[in-house]
C-alpha cells in the first residue's frame, strides 16, 4: 500500500469511525441508533450554516456538535423515557435530517443541492498520517478514551450493565434511565463529529445527502468491530480502504464509475453477511419499564 493510499484510507475511515463509535455507545446502553445518518447530516448542515453566518469555523463546529446533542436528547426521550420503538424513531431522524437540510438550504442559499463554500479547518501535518484535519486525530484519541472508559472505569461497567440487563442494574442500585440517556446523548454527539468532518474538514460546503450512507456503514463497522471502540477503529479502516480504493480506481477510469462507486457498499454487504452471523450484540434493544 502506498503512503498516499494509506493516508486516504485514514481520511475516509474517519467519518465512518465517528458513526461507529457513536453507534457503539448507544448500543451498549441498549438503543439501536438507526438515526446516525440523519444525525451526521444535520450536524454537517449546521456546521456549515453557523460558519457561514459567523465566519468562524470553531463556532460552526460547536453548532454542529450541539445539533448532535439535541438529537441525542430527542432520541433518548422518545426511546428511553417514552418507550418508543427505536427503529421508528431512528428512521424518523434520518428522514427529518434529509428534509430539514434540503428545506433550509433552499431558503438560505437558494439551492437545495449545495451551500456556498465556507472557511474550514486547516490541516495539521503529522509524520506518516500526512496532512489531516484535527478530526482525524480526535477520532484516534476518542477510540482509546472510550475503550478505557467502557472497560476500566466503574461508570463504563455500569453503562454496559444497563444495556445488557437493566433489571439487574436496577436491583444493584444503578439509575438505569440516567445511564441510558447518557449513552445515547454522548453517542449521538460523537456521531455528529462524523458529519462535521465531512462538511467542515473535508469539502468545506454542505451538499444535500453528503453523508451518503456513512451512518449506516458506521453501524456495519460497529457490528464488525464487535461493539468495542478498538474493533470499530479496525473495521472503519477496512471500510475507509474500500472508499479510498474506489476513488483511486475512478481516477484510473478502467471501470464504469457506477460500478466503482458500489465498492464500499459491496464490502459492507460482504463483511456483514460473512461475519454478522457470529456477532451477538451486547445489549437488549427494548425499552426498560419499571414495575
Amino acid at each position, binding site marked *: 500500500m502506498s503512503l498516499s493510499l494509506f493516508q486516504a484510507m485514514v481520511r475516509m475511515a474517519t467519518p465512518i469511525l465517528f458513526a461507529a463509535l457513536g453507534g457503539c455507545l448507544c448500543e451498549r446502553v441498549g438503543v439501536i441508533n438507526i438515526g446516525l445518518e440523519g444525525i451526521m447530516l444535520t450536524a454537517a448542515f449546521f456546521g456549515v450554516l453557523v460558519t457561514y453566518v459567523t465566519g468562524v469555523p470553531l463556532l460552526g463546529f460547536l453548532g454542529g456538535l450541539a445539533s448532535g446533542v439535541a438529537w441525542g436528547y430527542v432520541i433518548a426521550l422518545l426511546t428511553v423515557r417514552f418507550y418508543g420503538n427505536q427503529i421508528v424513531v431512528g428512521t424518523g431522524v434520518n428522514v427529518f435530517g434529509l428534509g430539514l437540510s434540503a428545506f433550509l438550504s433552499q431558503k438560505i442559499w437558494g439551492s437545495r443541492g449545495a451551500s456556498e463554500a465556507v472557511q474550514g479547518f486547516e490541516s495539521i501535518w503529522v509524520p506518516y498520517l500526512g496532512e489531516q484535519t484535527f478530526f482525524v486525530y480526535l477520532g484516534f484519541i476518542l477510540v482509546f478514551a472510550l475503550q478505557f472508559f467502557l472497560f476500566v*472505569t466503574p461508570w463504563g*461497567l*455500569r453503562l454496559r*450493565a444497563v444495556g445488557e440487563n437493566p*433489571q439487574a442494574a436496577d*436491583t444493584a*442500585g*444503578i439509575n438505569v434511565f440516567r445511564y441510558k440517556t447518557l449513552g445515547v446523548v454522548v453517542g449521538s454527539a460523537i456521531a455528529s463529529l462524523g458529519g462535521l468532518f465531512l462538511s467542515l474538514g473535508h469539502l468545506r460546503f454542505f451538499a444535500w445527502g453528503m453523508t451518503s450512507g456513512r451512518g449506516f456503514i458506521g453501524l456495519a463497522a460497529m457490528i464488525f468491530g464487535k461493539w468495542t471502540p478498538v474493533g470499530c477503529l479496525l473495521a472503519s479502516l477496512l471500510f475507509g480502504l474500500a472508499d479510498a480504493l474506489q476513488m483511486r480506481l475512478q481516477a484510473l477510469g478502467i471501470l464504469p464509475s457506477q460500478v466503482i462507486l458500489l465498492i464500499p457498499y459491496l464490502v459492507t454487504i460482504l463483511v456483514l453477511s460473512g461475519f454478522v452471523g457470529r456477532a451477538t450484540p451486547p445489549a437488549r434493544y427494548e425499552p426498560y419499564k419499571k414495575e
Partner: protein
Amino acid sequence: MIALAVRGLTKRFGDIVANDHIDLDVAQGEIHGLLGENGAGKSVLSSCIYGLYRPDSGRIFLWGKEVHITSPFDAIRLGIGMVHQHLMLVPHLSVWENIVLGREPRRGIQVDRKKVLRDIEKLFEETGFQLDLSEEIANLPVGVRQQVEILKVLFRGADILILDEPTAVLTPQEVDQLLATLRRLKAQGKTIIFISHKLKEVFALCDRVTVLRRGKKVGTLPIGEATPEILAEMMVGRRVFFEFPKERVEKGGVLLTLREVSTNPPGVPLKGISFDVRSGEILGIAGVEGNGQSELVEVLVGLRRPKGGAVLFQGKDITHSSPKERIRLGIAHVPEDRHRLGVILDFSIWENLVLGFETEPPFRKGWITLNLQAIRSFARQKIREFEITVPHENVPLRTLSGGNQQKVVVARELAFEPSLLVACQPTRGLDVAATEYLRNLLLAARRKGKAVLLISADLDEIRALSDRVLVMYEGKIVGELAPESDEYQFGLLMGGKGFDEAGVASSS
C-alpha cells in the same frame, strides 16, 4: 434477638389481596423457611421487605427499630440482600464485574481491581466457593451463577439474606451444595429467609418455618414440631397424600423399541441405547441431569437425528420420521422446558391448547380457516376437565401459574389419545397441589393402557410412579432397577459405579 419483624403487612394489587395482615418474626442467626404454594404471597412479602413493592399498610422493624424501605437501594443500605428466583446478573459481564456492579471500589477513575480481588477472596473463605472471576456469566451453569448472586449480595454487606425459591432451577447436586453454603453462612451469624415450596429442603435446612396460604399467614412452627403432613396440610388447606396408590395394570405389548441408538454432539452423545416400553407401564429414566436424558428425548420426538440405531414404534421404523408424523402416530411430548418447547407465553390459553393440532379436522373449517367456535369450546372443556384455574380461555398463558401452564401442555398432549407419553420433568417448579395432580394424571394414563416414559431428575418422583427404572450415565443406560430398590443402589448407578458393584441385573 429479633433481626427482622413484620407487623400487619398488607399489599393489594387491584382487587387481589396478595398479603393480608402478615406478621413475621425472624431471629438473628436463624434460617427461617417461608413456605407456601405458588401465589400464596411469599414473593410479594419478600419484595415488600426488599423495597421492590411498597406495602399498603403494615410496619417493618430491623433490630427492633422501625424502618421505611422504599427501594432496593434502602434495603441494601440496611443490610438486607436478596437472591431473586430469576437471577439478576448481566450475562456478558465477568463474574467479578457482576459482583461489584454498582459498588465498585475505585482508585482514581479506575476500578480498583486489586481491592476487588482481595475482597472477593475473603468472601470465598466465608462461603467456601471457588470461582474463576474472569469467566463470563453466560458460560456458567445455573448453579454457579447462583453462587455469583450470593457473593454479590454478601459483597454489599448483607446480614439478612432473602432467597426466593433458590432451588427451583438447580439440580439435586447443586441443591445439596447450596444448602451446605447456607448452613455455613448461618454459622457465621447471618440471618436467612429461605422461600420454598419444597418440604424436603425446608426440613433439611430451616430452624423455623412460616406457612402462607392465599395471602394469609397460617402459622409459624419450629421445625422439630412439624411433619411433612402437617406442613402440606397448612399449605394446601386439605390433606395431601404422599403415597401414590399404583394399581395393578395388565401390561400390553411392546409399543416403543430403541435399538442401539447413538448420537453425535452437540450435547451429550448417546452410546448404544436400547430398551422397550410396553403399553400400560411407566418406564422411569433416572439419572443426574445432563447425562443424555434431553438428547434421548429429542431422538424420540424427532428433534435430533441419531447417528446409528433404530427407533421402532408399534413395530414401524420411525428413526427418520418428522415430529409431525410421530404426533400423528400417537407420541405425545411434555417437554422439560415448557417455556422453550411447550407453549407460547403471549398466546392465549385456547391458542396454546391447539398448537400443533390446529390442522386437525375438528379445529378446521374448510381449507383455510380455523373453526374458532370449535376451538374455544374445546378449550373451555379442557379448562374444566383439567381444573385449570383461569378466568376464561382468552387470557394470555403468561398470566397463569406454572402449575396451570403445565396443565395446559398436558391437556393438549393428551387430547388426541396418544398411545405413548414422553414426560420430561413434568413437575419441575410446580407446587405441592399441582405436582400431586400431574402425578395422578400420569397414573391415570397408565391405567388407560397408555405407555409413559418418565424422565425426571427427582428420584422420589421416579420411584413413586415407575414400574421399572433405567438409570442413565454419560449417554448410556447403566442399569435397570425396580423402583423399590434402595436409594443407595440408585445413587451408585447414577454416580456411574458399574452395576456389578450395585449388584443388579443388566438391562436389555
